[in-house]
């Protein structure tokens, strides 16, 4: 386990092909190997690994989308009127990058600097997610989720309606479900083939993280005293089925979860600063960080599920082998 301390908040962590990358509230990016990039003028609000597997793409409150590599950094795009870039996603499959600023979703092509699509929403976009093949994009907003074709310039989105404020969005790994987190401490899902609604509630707190694992058969979320696991098996997904909870601890909340869809391990970061790893099919928790401290504010797992990185509210960060 390696730990470090930064004098700013760590707002996101991603793994690229080489290692962990920390994005900070002072606008800088710190690579696990010690490389440093300070291209933003303000806080980094969101980050995702570049589709090439080299480096990180960050969106900032300076309205800039920046690709940082260990050797250099460059601006990929800017938002209209410098609006905050709140959410970003990228697809290694299609090589596309999508980010939101205010009510606009923008799509870029990592291999074609001239490509840009801007899609307008009625409300501010809170989350952006590519479907697994990278050809469609889901956004979460007030009142539901919108589905866009990534490359088509003129289109009307399919709008998946559900009353309330949706704060984050994800696709199931097989591309058949879209799931959002909501302001009032619940999840909402749609089966895309018939837009059938899935209501997934019972959380004591807002859900900040959703992540699929075990070949897409489980959706893990934060927001409860344990990590909540929803079964996504068969055509009905979790409809009519119960969630399970692992690592229940009355004294803390699971603040964040991280996993990889093809692997069967789950990492959880707790409100009391601890971090654990578990195999939902097995027994027990493996504490990667057993010391209590400030709440965990960022958590990530490498693509091969062999490494986990975390950060807490006081700027402490660590990387451990799973």
């Amino acid at each position, binding site marked *: 386990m390696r730990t470090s301390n930064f*004098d*700013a*908040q760590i*707002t996101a962590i991603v793994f690229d092909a080489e290692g962990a990358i920390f994005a900070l*509230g*002072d606008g800088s990016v710190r690579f696990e190997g010690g490389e440093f990039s300070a291209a933003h003028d*303000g*806080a*980094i*609000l969101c980050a995702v690994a570049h589709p090439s597997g080299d480096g990180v793409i960050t969106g900032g*409150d300076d309205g800039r989308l920046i690709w940082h590599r260990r050797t250099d950094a460059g601006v990929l795009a800017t938002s209209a*009127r*410098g*609006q*905050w870039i*709140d959410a970003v996603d990228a697809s290694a499959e299609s090589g596309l990058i999508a980010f939101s600023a*205010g*009510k606009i979703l923008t799509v870029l092509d990592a291999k074609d600097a001239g490509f840009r699509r801007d899609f307008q929403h009625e*409300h*501010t976009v*809170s989350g952006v997610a590519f479907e697994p093949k990278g050809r469609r994009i889901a956004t979460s907003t*007030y009142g539901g989720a919108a589905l866009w074709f990534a490359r088509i310039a003129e289109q009307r989105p399919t709008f998946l309606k559900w*009353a*309330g*404020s949706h704060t984050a969005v994800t696709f199931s790994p097989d591309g058949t479900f879209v799931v959002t987190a*909501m*302001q*009032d401490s*619940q999840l909402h899902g749609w089966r895309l083939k018939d837009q059938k609604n899935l209501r997934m509630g019972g959380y004591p*707190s*807002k859900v900040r993280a959703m992540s699929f694992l075990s070949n897409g058969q489980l959706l893990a979320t934060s927001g409860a005293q344990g990590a909540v696991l929803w079964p996504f098996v068969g055509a009905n997904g979790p409809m009519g089925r119960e969630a399970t909870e692992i690592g229940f601890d009355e004294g803390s909340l699971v603040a964040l979860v991280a996993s990889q869809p093809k692997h069967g391990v789950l990492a959880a970061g707790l409100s009391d600063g601890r971090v654990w790893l578990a195999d939902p099919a097995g027994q027990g928790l493996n504490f990667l960080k057993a010391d209590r401290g*400030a709440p965990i504010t960022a958590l990530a797992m490498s693509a091969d599920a062999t490494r986990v990185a975390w950060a807490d*509210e*006081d*700027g402490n960060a660590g990387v451990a082998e799973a």
Partner: protein
Amino acid sequence: MTDKIPVTVLTGYLGAGKTTLLNRILTEDHGKRYAVIVNEFGEIGIDNDLVVGADEDVFEMNNGCVCCTVRGDLIRVVAGLMKRQRPGKPAFDAIIVETTGLADPGPVAQTFFVDEDVKAKTQLDSVTALVDAKHVMARLDDSKEAREQVAFADRIILNKVDLVDEAELVAVEARLRRLNPLAPITRAERANVPLDQVLGLGGFDLGRILDINPEFANPAHGEHGHVHDEHCGHDHHDHDHDHDHAHDHHHGARGHAHEDDIKGISLSLDRPMDGTRFTAWLDRLLGEQGQNILRAKGIIDVNGEDRRLVFQAVHMILEGDLQKPWGANERRWSRAVFIGRELDEAALRAGFEACAA
């Protein structure tokens, strides 16, 4: 890590002087840094390096409860701003939220009580309503939002007083006071208000609700019986007015009294109250009429309790706690003010008094 960041909300319609006031706050030599959330991003004329645009996106919660309505944009912007903060080296000391004249202050305030993330990091300090002495009467006549902003405020700044005469000011202040008997009115020209009358008021802080004086209900400037206190916010020699003359205006203002749909109702009782009965009454009142009650504050003398029970409410959101003990020579009495729409004063008074022990 750090203490909760205080948040001050500035309401007021276009032309009331909000931008001037904001710039005064931001440029005064106080050594503090402020983050400013404005309603229109890229708005010109605000002199600060941390200005963020919001959308006035009002989010109704899925449970359909109007009183849980929050401002989604504020949740998003506050979360983003907090990412700049770091232990020991804060990026800013306070947040100022500017709203448009069309904004409903309820959801703005409720955001700071309802959203768990916002609540964990920030604390609503106060709501200040800026009104323009020359146009406020017409605004109050034609705009529900203008009436609500005045009724909701912890402090009212009556700006541009140099553009109207004393008689008009008296009438304006009388009407503002009927809408909101809790908020001190500060007169200003070109928004020249001392900053300590806008920032750090603790309007929602139970520990600072020390004095509610419904019987005193200081008449407006120039009205007969007005007592100059620390809330006046002007030099007394500024307007050496004739009290007899003002007395006539007092009648004049009443004669043409504007009957607004919103008003403040002041209640008091000189006998101790039954704590259980009072709490049950207040809970039921807010449950049934919370949609119509914008603000409420009270200090209650509970039978058999040495400490005073202090409460404040925004619509249905109620906070109450036992605060400092009554002094040995202090007058022990209960008083409360409810500001809202279509409130039945007689019924409220009867309900309040029925809580006597």
